[in-house]
């Protein structure tokens, strides 16, 4: 056969690794043909809706459902009493705690689920919710974790105050756990002796992932076949299946969980919510499908929040700026139930990455988890298990230390970065950073923005401000972050006992196209596009001829799902490994067809060629056909493979960000003039998709740093439960971002990829915050808490006397 296509063209045709392949998902999404949970309508389906508590802490004296039941079209009203015989009035959380599904005697946060109304349509359900009469007796409300630890008021009466919790002993009836890493005495000794010490307290406010699509589920119990099908907004469908089985007693093979298209997750859709459980029970009770979809207020008031960390830091250094020690203590407000979604052994997630990108010889981290009368959660919002908090902490401590040392913050970072030759680097708090080249990234970033020039300009602007010539000041925000993603090695990472591997199963069809199924689920990341690219490069079948399927537990192999930027590091690795199994068998088939020994053929883009005689080859298409149609001695027919990948380590993407901002001191309005983001996510699969992820992550970073807050008043009323009060940036507030990169592959990942979806959020928040704080540094600012909304910025200016 004559080969008229050049090798280069063959590579291009594959659209494999490194190709900015257009997304295959987009055809249906742009035509309005996405298929989200709320688009599912099954015959006879009923709608569920919650009666929710208006109080943050109250005893539930009685619930009267008579009037609601009397309403035409109402089919059932469930309360804790109905769920109790099934042992479903409480459910386990991912953090080893338990959570009420429906109020069992009391309510612990505003918006808590009290009763579940099931009706013919959403309007009737909403009417019936109004008709359920609940008698409450108000109890004292605690919204401050520090007060909570002092209070006589017992929030969780269901827990024995003297018994240990899921993470060891509890110090107080409102205390959840203490988690410590590192050498506290040693660290204190170093800090006490140091030339220079900077201390700071900072509050990383409570916020919420708020994906555009709220959470929801459709449960359909087929009593004839004994099968339950559950559709829902699940970032981890397989885990949901296992939990549903454990909770309901329905055998796991009789449960099918499907995550259809998901309208953004960002961590919000990792957990299991009462709505899911109630829709299942309601379907079992009524015998017909039941849909539950929350509205935006319910989403913001009751589903998983993020952050809410009170952090106290001490950092010491020599006079020259070499960091000698770091001490960090966190008081973590977990709300009414500990529903964090962290690997079991890490009750504060990977907060212990708080030594950041710096070579710090000794460090200590202590975290105390506390109950309050706020919604439960504590999820990784566009980050990997509390890394956002950790990176914010260290990047603020660096800035504060720079002030203490009277040193430039870029230089201070440069002095303390882990050096390229130190990788793999063992951090003091127990992580093995796989690879990095921080200095190169940093210098590239500083050069790209002309850092020196910016500082000069800033000095001139300060002088002009002092002369009264302008009312705006200029801030230069710096941040350098190291992420820790791809959870994780089964030896130390599990969720509810399930190891955090992931999986891929590939079938090659006789005509040379393929389908691959994974244990993850895309929520906009474009898996159908990018995983096909990984595979295309591995097996030589064009990405356009590979279907990627995720989210249906009946067909996809078991996996732990998509969050914490784990899809590429873990499922992406499984994909490559499964691809290699395919290739190994393909090699044997090719050798047979070419009548040579296995070792005499080698893989070349989309075919196997005879070594030294590349004109003699078999394409992957020919090999696939032969696999199904030819009896090959010693080989089973077919061409399929499956891989369950247990990562040997996490991956550690990193990046260098610079933000240049103007602040109007009289209005408090910041204007972002420039944002430069350099990301190193190892091998780049699809540059277009990477860039899109960075734009999105930075936008959510801007949101969090500049205003996106879940706030409560003293009565425990959630003050930010609508999009009027909860800041989501629009196209008007968001700038254009400049993206750049370096490539430092992960040495242990099969294709060297590290994951990227969350890096920009992790690195972006401190960068925006540092820009605001840097603008005020020449006027004596040291630290102010986020979110830097207009009022708080104005207040900072006012406190510093800039309005005098």
């Amino acid at each position, binding site marked *: 056969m004559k080969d008229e296509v050049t090798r280069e063209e063959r590579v291009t045709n594959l659209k494999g690794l490194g190709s900015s392949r257009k997304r295959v998902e987009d055809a249906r999404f742009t035509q309005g043909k996405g298929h989200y949970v709320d688009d599912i309508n099954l015959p006879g389906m009923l709608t569920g809706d919650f009666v929710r508590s208006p109080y943050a802490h109250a005893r539930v004296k009685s619930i009267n459902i008579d009037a609601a039941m009397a309403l035409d079209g109402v089919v059932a009203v469930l309360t804790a009493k109905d769920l109790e015989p099934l042992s479903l009035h409480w459910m386990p959380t991912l953090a080893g705690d338990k959570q009420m599904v429906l109020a069992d005697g009391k309510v612990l946060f505003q918006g808590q689920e009290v009763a579940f109304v099931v009706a013919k349509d959403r309007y009737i359900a909403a009417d019936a919710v109004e008709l359920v009469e609940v008698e409450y007796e108000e109890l004292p409300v605690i919204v401050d974790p520090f007060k909570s630890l002092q209070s006589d008021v017992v929030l969780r009466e269901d827990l024995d105050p003297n018994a240990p919790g899921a993470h060891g002993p509890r110090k107080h009836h409102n205390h959840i756990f203490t988690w410590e890493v590192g050498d506290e005495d040693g660290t204190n000794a170093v800090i006490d002796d140091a030339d220079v010490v900077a201390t700071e307290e900072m509050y990383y406010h409570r916020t919420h992932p708020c994906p555009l699509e709220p959470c929801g589920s459709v449960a359909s119990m087929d009593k004839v076949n004994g099968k339950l099908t559950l559709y829902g907004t699940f970032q981890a469908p397989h885990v949901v299946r296992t939990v549903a089985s454990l909770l309901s007693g329905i055998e796991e093979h009789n449960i099918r969980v499907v995550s259809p298209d998901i309208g953004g997750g960002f961590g919000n859709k990792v957990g299991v919510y009462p709505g899911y459980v109630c829709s299942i029970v309601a379907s079992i009770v009524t015998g017909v499908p039941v849909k539950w979809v929350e509205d935006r207020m319910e989403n913001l008031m009751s589903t998983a929040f993020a952050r809410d960390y009170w952090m106290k830091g001490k950092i010491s250094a020599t006079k020259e700026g070499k960091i000698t020690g770091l001490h960090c203590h966190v008081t973590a407000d977990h709300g009414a139930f500990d529903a964090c979604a962290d690997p079991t052994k890490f009750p504060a997630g990977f907060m212990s990455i708080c030594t950041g990108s710096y070579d710090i010889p000794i460090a200590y981290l202590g975290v105390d988890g506390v109950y309050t009368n706020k919604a439960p959660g504590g999820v990784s919002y566009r980050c990997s298990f509390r890394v956002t908090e950790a990176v914010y902490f260290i990047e603020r401590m660096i800035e504060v230390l720079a002030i203490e040392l009277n040193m430039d913050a870029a230089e201070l970072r440069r002095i303390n970065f882990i050096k390229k030759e130190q990788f793999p680097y063992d951090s003091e708090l127990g992580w093995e950073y796989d690879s990095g080249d921080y200095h190169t990234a940093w210098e590239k970033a500083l050069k790209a923005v002309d850092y020196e020039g910016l500082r000069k300009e800033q000095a001139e602007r300060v002088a002009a401000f002092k002369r009264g010539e302008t009312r705006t000041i200029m801030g230069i925000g710096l941040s350098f972050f190291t992420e820790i993603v791809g959870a994780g090695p089964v030896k130390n990472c599990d969720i509810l006992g399930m190891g955090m591997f992931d999986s891929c199963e590939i079938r090659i069809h006789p005509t040379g196209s393929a389908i691959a199924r994974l244990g993850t689920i895309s929520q906009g990341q474009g898996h159908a596009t990018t995983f096909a690219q990984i595979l295309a490069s591995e097996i030589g079948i064009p990405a356009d001829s590979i279907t990627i399927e995720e989210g249906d537990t009946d067909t996809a192999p078991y996996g732990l799902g998509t969050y914490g930027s784990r899809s590429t590091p873990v499922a992406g690795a499984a994909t490559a490994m499964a691809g290699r199994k395919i290739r190994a068998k393909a090699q044997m088939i090719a050798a047979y067809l070419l009548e040579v020994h296995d070792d005499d053929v080698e893989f070349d883009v989309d075919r196997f060629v005879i070594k030294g005689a590349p004109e003699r080859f078999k394409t992957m298409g020919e090999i696939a056909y032969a696999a199904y149609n030819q009896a090959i001695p010693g080989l089973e027919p077919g061409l399929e493979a499956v891989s369950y990948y247990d990562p040997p380590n996490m991956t550690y993407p990193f990046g260098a960000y610079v933000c240049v901002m103007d602040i109007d001191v009289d209005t408090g309005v910041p204007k972002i003039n420039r944002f430069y983001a350099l990301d190193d996510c190892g091998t780049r699969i699809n540059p277009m998709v990477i860039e899109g992820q960075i734009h999105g992550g930075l936008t959510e970073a801007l949101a969090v740093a500049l205003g996106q807050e879940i706030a409560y008043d003293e009565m425990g009323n959630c003050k930010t439960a609508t999009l009027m009060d909860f800041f989501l940036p*629009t196209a008007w507030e968001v700038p254009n971002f400049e993206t750049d990169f370096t490539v430092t592959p992960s040495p242990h990942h099969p294709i060297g990829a590290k994951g990227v979806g969350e890096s920009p959020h992790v690195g972006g928040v401190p960068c925006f915050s540092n820009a605001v704080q840097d603008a005020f540094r020449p006027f004596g600012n040291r630290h102010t808490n986020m979110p830097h909304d207009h009022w708080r910025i104005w207040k900072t200016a006012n406190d510093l006397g800039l309005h005098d």
Partner: protein
Amino acid sequence: MTNQIVKMTVNGEKKEILAEPRELLIYVLREKLGLSGAHVGCETSHCGACTVEIDGKSVKSCTMFAVQAEGAKITTIEGLGTPDNLHVLQENFKEHHGLQCGYCTPGMITRAHRLLQENPNPTEEDVRFGISGNICRCTGYQNIVKSILSAAAELNAAKEAAQ
């Protein structure tokens, strides 16, 4: 509550549906007419996921009763382009990675469509202001803006060529 007959033209087709006076247009479109492209993100007019075009205006269909649409001409995302012949905006959103999860996309494209009718030659600022009633949580808008500007350029070029 008593149902009322509502007559409207949706994507060029005459429709007659029964709706309660309190029923929101978004639910009638999604559930009674099977046009599930427009989505619900807030039900309070903030997010724009439910945007459709009514009598030459962009309207958030979560904030309008179906009965108010009596006699109206409605265009939804399903009325723009066909699988074999995508609308220029749809093509450009694909080309410039103007979407990720896709939840905001139908509202966003429908809004952009109207915007380009009103202002065929928008600046970047015009586009940013013009779509500021539509929230996207995934893309950071940069590529959405790029998609719309590029669609505008393409439409203008086509117009010029036709003249």
